[in-house]
């Protein structure tokens, strides 16, 4: 029991210098394709996720542009209604299940979480690799369904249409079912890692806010995803055996399916957006070089959102035929998600106040996030108001709202995150000039695409429409032009990031002057993250202290110490 009694131990620590020019790091520690495919290194797994989600974002994005092109005229111009329905379903399903859910948690989360905790890896590295392969298998099922008979039900798979349609529903729902397990296992892994693998001195109050966001996200993943799994399992059985639970033709209830589906899929919205909050907290504090305002408010509001967000699924169903009482209760609860969300936005603004603001590309995306996400948030309040919701439900207003949240929120934060941690991941810098140009183009393109959709939505344009009445044509055309602009913006990003990968300047270990542990190692990081065992004395946003105060630790890595206990030690001079 000697180790357990070390809680109040004295540690011999010293300052460490970070190797600015590492000859060996995680990218070259092992070589060959096998060293990637069988790696248990969280950083490499993170990069594999990153590559996959970018691939699927590209596919989903191309589908979106095809949809917008079809909608340039009120009637058929590229494809028939059947093809259109398949394409909008695939756009939704790919973006939700293959891109946005794993985007920040699995890609950035895997890469960053252990480093921010000062750990060498996640708690279960092999399980982590298995999660990636489970995700891949799910993705393969989804792709096979694409080749066989692409699904045309909408990404929500509502019964009884999903029971009756001739398209390959079983294949794609099986794919989503399998990917759900990847999400559950990743969430479990992160929770255990956060609880058990914190560096000495890294108490809960010193966790970076990205970690708090990931913690809240992981809880939702573990809580809600099993319900999606059982729902899709029942849907598969419905098609396979005709069990009838959701099929009105056999005495079942389609509204029950909607309850089950949204019980997962509404919290899933927070799986998508809460990690984005984490990224934004890191970026804004670093580029304002200022202590974050309201640390506990931001940390706890993530948990509050996770909790309240689990109780509001019925607001997707105000006109579905659920009882009026549930409608009123769900509406009431829905508004309370707005409070912690608002708190976050105000805290970020207060962080910028009297800061030293450096308008680099990640910060630019964080600003764009604040603007677009505010619009997404207030239109959410609009949709929560029951009487107005009756009018706006299933119109383009809803489409615009969730694109402002998911794309204006999560994707912008994802872009901020990629630009922020790119030097750490690759050891290379990208072109700041082109970074800003692309950010501006994306900002303009995004608003040109989705602002008109608010207007035509409130005018009554229903979503998922292949044909539309001529009154809406000018708005649709504006939206289509915006989508091309967006496409150009993303192509520019792709181009300069590729250029950076091969020709980019060497990045220093901490180019933006952050204070969290993920920056206290070389760029790219060493094979096991740190060449020393970090010990934490200072808060993650103590920008008033010199960076050297954050590279304290114990030489070697075989010292025994546990999870985040308070460290009482004298700092030895290096």
């Amino acid at each position: 029991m000697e180790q357990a009694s070390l809680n109040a131990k004295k540690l011999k620590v010293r300052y460490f210098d970070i190797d600015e020019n590492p000859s060996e790091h995680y990218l070259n520690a092992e070589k060959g394709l096998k060293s990637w495919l069988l790696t248990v290194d969280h950083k490499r797994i993170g990069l594999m996720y990153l590559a996959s989600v970018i691939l699927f974002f590209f596919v989903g994005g191309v589908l979106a542009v095809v949809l917008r092109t079809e909608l340039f005229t009120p009637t058929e111009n590229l494809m028939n209604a059947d093809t259109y329905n398949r394409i909008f379903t695939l756009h939704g399903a790919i973006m939700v299940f293959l891109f946005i859910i794993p985007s920040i948690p699995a890609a950035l989360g895997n890469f960053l979480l252990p480093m921010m905790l000062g750990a060498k890896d996640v708690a279960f590295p092999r399980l982590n690799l298995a999660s990636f392969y489970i995700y891949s298998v799910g993705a393969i099922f989804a792709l096979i369904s694409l080749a066989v008979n692409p699904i045309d039900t909408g990404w929500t798979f509502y019964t009884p249409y999903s029971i009756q349609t001739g398209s390959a529903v079983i294949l794609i729902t099986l794919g989503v079912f399998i990917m759900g397990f990847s999400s559950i296992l990743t969430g479990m892994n992160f929770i255990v890692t956060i609880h058990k693998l914190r560096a000495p001195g890294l108490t809960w109050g010193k966790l970076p806010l990205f970690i708090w966001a990931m913690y809240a996200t992981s809880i939702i993943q573990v809580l809600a995803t099993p319900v999606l799994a059982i729902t899709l399992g029942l849907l598969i059985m419905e098609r396979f055996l005709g069990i009838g639970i959701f099929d009105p033709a056999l005495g079942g209830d389609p509204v029950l399916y909607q309850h089950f589906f949204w019980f997962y899929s509404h919290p899933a919205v927070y799986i998508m957006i809460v990690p984005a909050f984490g990224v934004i907290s890191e970026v804004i504090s670093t580029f304002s070089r200022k202590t974050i305002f309201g640390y506990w408010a931001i940390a706890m509001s993530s948990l509050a959102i996770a909790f309240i967000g689990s109780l509001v699924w019925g607001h997707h169903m105000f006109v579905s035929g659920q009882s009026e009482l549930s409608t009123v209760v769900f509406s009431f609860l829905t508004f309370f998600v707005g409070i912690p969300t608002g708190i976050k936005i105000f805290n970020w603004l207060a962080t910028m106040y009297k800061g030293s603001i450096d308008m680099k590309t990640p910060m630019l995306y964080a600003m764009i996030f604040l603007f677009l996400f505010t619009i997404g948030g207030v239109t959410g309040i609009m949709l929560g108001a029951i009487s107005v919701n009756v009018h706006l439900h299933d119109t383009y207003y809803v489409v615009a709202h969730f694109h402002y949240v998911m794309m204006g929120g999560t994707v912008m934060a994802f872009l901020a995150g990629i630009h922020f941690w790119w030097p750490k991941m690759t050891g290379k810098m990208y072109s700041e000039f082109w970074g800003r140009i692309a950010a501006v183009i994306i900002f303009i393109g995004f608003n040109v695409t989705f602002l008109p959709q608010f207007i035509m939505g409130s005018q009554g344009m229903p979503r998922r429409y292949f044909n539309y009445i001529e009154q809406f044509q000018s708005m649709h055309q504006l939206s289509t032009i915006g989508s091309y602009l967006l496409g150009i913006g993303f192509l520019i990003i792709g181009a300069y990031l590729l250029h950076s990968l091969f020709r980019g300047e060497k990045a220093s270990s901490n180019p933006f002057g952050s204070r969290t542990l993920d920056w206290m190692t070389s760029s790219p990081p060493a094979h096991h993250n740190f060449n020393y065992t970090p010990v934490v004395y200072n808060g993650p946003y103590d920008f008033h202290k010199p960076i050297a105060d954050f590279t304290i630790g114990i030489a070697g890595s075989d010292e025994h110490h546990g999870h985040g206990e308070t460290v009482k030690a004298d700092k030895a001079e290096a």
Partner: protein
Amino acid sequence: MEYLTNFFLPSAESTYATQVDALFHFINIVSLILLVGITFAIVYFSIKYRRKSQEDTTPVITHNTTLEVTWTVIPLILILIVFGWGFKDFVEMRTPPGDAYEVHVTAYSFGWDFEYPNGVVSANTLYVPEQTPIRLLMRARENDVLHSFFVPQFRLKQDLIPNRVTTAWFEAKRTGEFVYFCTEYCGAGHSIMNGLVKVLSQEDFDAWLEEEAGRDLDALPLAELGRITFTSAGCAGCHSLDGSSRVGPTFQGLYMAERQFTDGTSRIADEEYLLESIIYPQRQINVGYPNNMPTFYGDTLSERELAGLVEFIKELQ
């Protein structure tokens, strides 16, 4: 001002629409103030506090209780107002006056039937008298899928479910024609499953109802009956008469044309083929069209209606 409200919302034509719009505008105005404030703060801070040198230092401000309470309590009050307001109007939208005129609505893929108390059925057009509360008793046809009835100008929307009755009500303020849509995705014909609500004066409505009730379908010539069946049975949902391609092939020039099937065979569209493809639509599938035509027409249409449809199609040369 009116231009602005019309820019955002279609004209308000039901009794409760104006109240719904008031909340819509209230939220928009509050949101706009909030958004302008936040945007101003972002822009102002990033100019005023831009980094001047790499040695910049910043004050340590970790929290400010007054400020934090303010930005928690004010939004809390606002959301409670919005909830209460929305709730109040919702109660009204869901509570029809006791003397409402009842219309039964049946939706199917891809069309609508509206049945009036005297047994008259109108297909795809809902006729109602003005300034009278109308209660809709709605269901989707058995073995069909979900649909949703949405009239933007009435701020009215309600899903229709097979084997279950859902209700909605409205009172149109004036006569006119108002478009309605299906807003629950239901397949290939979803976006053409729309039509008109025709609001008539009480006299016109009564006259229309009487004329419809008195019409003797059995006395009509076959092709004329076919024309009526074409709309009433919902064929118009998927088949056009002007040569354009919808969910299914157009009826124009169909008679005696050569049809290509997905199994590689082909056939001349004679009377026998036309009748067979109405009753057994899944036997031969035209190339380029989905296999999703309902199979119940052989049961739901009378012999005379079927023959009428064939005669009607023959006339569309």
